[in-house]
């Protein structure tokens, strides 16, 4: 049951002259919800972007299902099932919601499950179902986030990475989305979550990594991390 599906070893990455990750190590276990928490600038988003290839790592390895995928182009990783829902949603604004979802299922592997996954998305997000023919850019922020997650689900992910899902959403909407994540997790989805809302993330996750200054400072079952007073003070500002 505790199979490691994604493993990051000594990852180093940054933007131009600025190095952000200094040898980050972490593992994602199949079927679990793993979260990375930490202060702004700790390297959480950079970690996800390095995994997808949006940022080219300067050192270290990314192992997915036993294969080194560090240097693969982003679209190849998506084909394999390493899928990210990016920060800021990044929908195709002048395409309809349905077209956005169809694009989620672009890869040959995901295409085979397109009809089933569309049904699934409509089941988890009834609001999205009502808006299929609308242009994605005209939706509210919360609806757009639902489409973004839905688009990720359409890719038939083996690991779904979600970057700052609750950013800019009302507390109520954020709670609803987290509820959906919980259901998805119960259905067996493997998730790697980066989230500035530490409370929600730790309450939901199985396993947590605390990132600071580009390195993992602590890891453990999410509940233990949440209960560790020193960690809360030193890294999470709680």
């Amino acid at each position, binding site marked *: 049951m505790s199979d490691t599906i994604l493993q990051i070893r000594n990852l180093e990455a940054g933007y131009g002259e600025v190095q952000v990750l200094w040898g980050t190590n972490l593992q994602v276990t199949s079927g679990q919800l793993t979260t990375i928490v930490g202060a702004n600038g700790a390297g959480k988003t950079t970690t996800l972007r390095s995994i*997808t*290839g*949006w940022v080219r790592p300067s050192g270290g390895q990314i192992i997915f299902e036993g294969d080194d995928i560090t240097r693969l*182009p*982003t*679209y190849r990783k*998506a*084909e394999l099932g390493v*899928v*990210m829902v*990016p920060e800021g949603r*990044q*929908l*195709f*604004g*002048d*395409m309809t919601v349905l*077209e956005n979802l*169809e*694009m*989620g*299922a*672009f*890869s040959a592997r*995901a295409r085979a499950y397109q009809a089933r996954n569309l049904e699934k998305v409509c089941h988890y997000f009834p609001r999205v179902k009502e808006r299929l023919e609308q*242009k994605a*850019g*005209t939706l509210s922020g919360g609806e757009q986030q639902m489409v973004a997650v839905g*688009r990720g689900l359409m*890719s038939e992910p083996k690991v779904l990475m979600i970057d700052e899902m609750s950013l800019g959403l009302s507390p109520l909407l954020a709670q609803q989305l987290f509820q959906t994540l919980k259901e998805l997790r119960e259905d067996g989805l493997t998730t790697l979550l980066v989230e500035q809302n530490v409370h929600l993330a730790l309450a939901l996750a199985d396993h947590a990594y605390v990132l600071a200054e580009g390195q993992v400072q602590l890891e453990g079952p999410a509940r233990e991390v949440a209960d560790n007073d020193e960690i809360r003070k030193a890294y999470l500002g709680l």
Partner: protein
Amino acid sequence: MTGVIVSIINGLLLGAIYGLAAIGLTLIFGVMKVINLAHGAMIALGMFALYLLVSWLGINPYLAVPVVGVGGFLMGFCIYWIAVHRVIGRAELMSLLATFAVSMIIVGVGTVLWSTSPYNVQVDMPGLSIGRYTIPGNHIVAAVVAILVAVALYLFLYYTRLGKAIRAVASNRQASELMGIPSTRVLAIAFGIGIGIAAVAGSLIATLFPFTILSGASYELKSFVVTVLGGLGNPAGALLGGLLLGLIEGSVSPFVSVSWTPVIEFSLFVVILILFPAGLFRVGRGR
């Protein structure tokens, strides 16, 4: 009065072809933010490709048009990898210079091969008589073909998986990669389609007028006027812009000498740029 109406109809027929040519330009810009200065050279190549197919192989010009389109696509696909791929996402001047260089090479080689003297393709097509005026048959066919190609492109972009992927890459290239869309390959295909359309437009123009290897330049300029009318990056707007430009040409030509046409067109170009920088039409785009 009939003369003016016939002139306007002729203008609209030509306008459809201007619109098609401009679609090639605006598609490339819309998808990859590259202003293709080799556009006119590709139109001219389309003219000569038609000429060669007709004079060497003796095929019917209208059957040669799709061949020119496919050839243009393949050529554009290759040019993308050679000259455009490395400058995508760099300063705009880079892609302007790269495509301008391609244009110079093509026109240079074309001049060596065919000199700059005019060629023409003979097309026999009965015209449509209105009183003592005639609307030439080849103009009607060319306009119909142009509109059919434009409609086919629209259907492709909105109803096929690859077409939607092109729109997705145009909208957000980074995000499209996250969906498993190989965005570089999609850009190469889009560039190929843009060039293929330019070549088809050139081959249609070749069925109407005599041409030289330098003829592409004036159609490239018209394409710029059309895209400014229709909004850069907007294919549906480009077709409407082309028709509008044709309408203007048709309406003024009975009253002024031909030399005035570019003066009027480009005055309009400047006025529209100042008053409506986003174009007159905003069709099919959410923004």
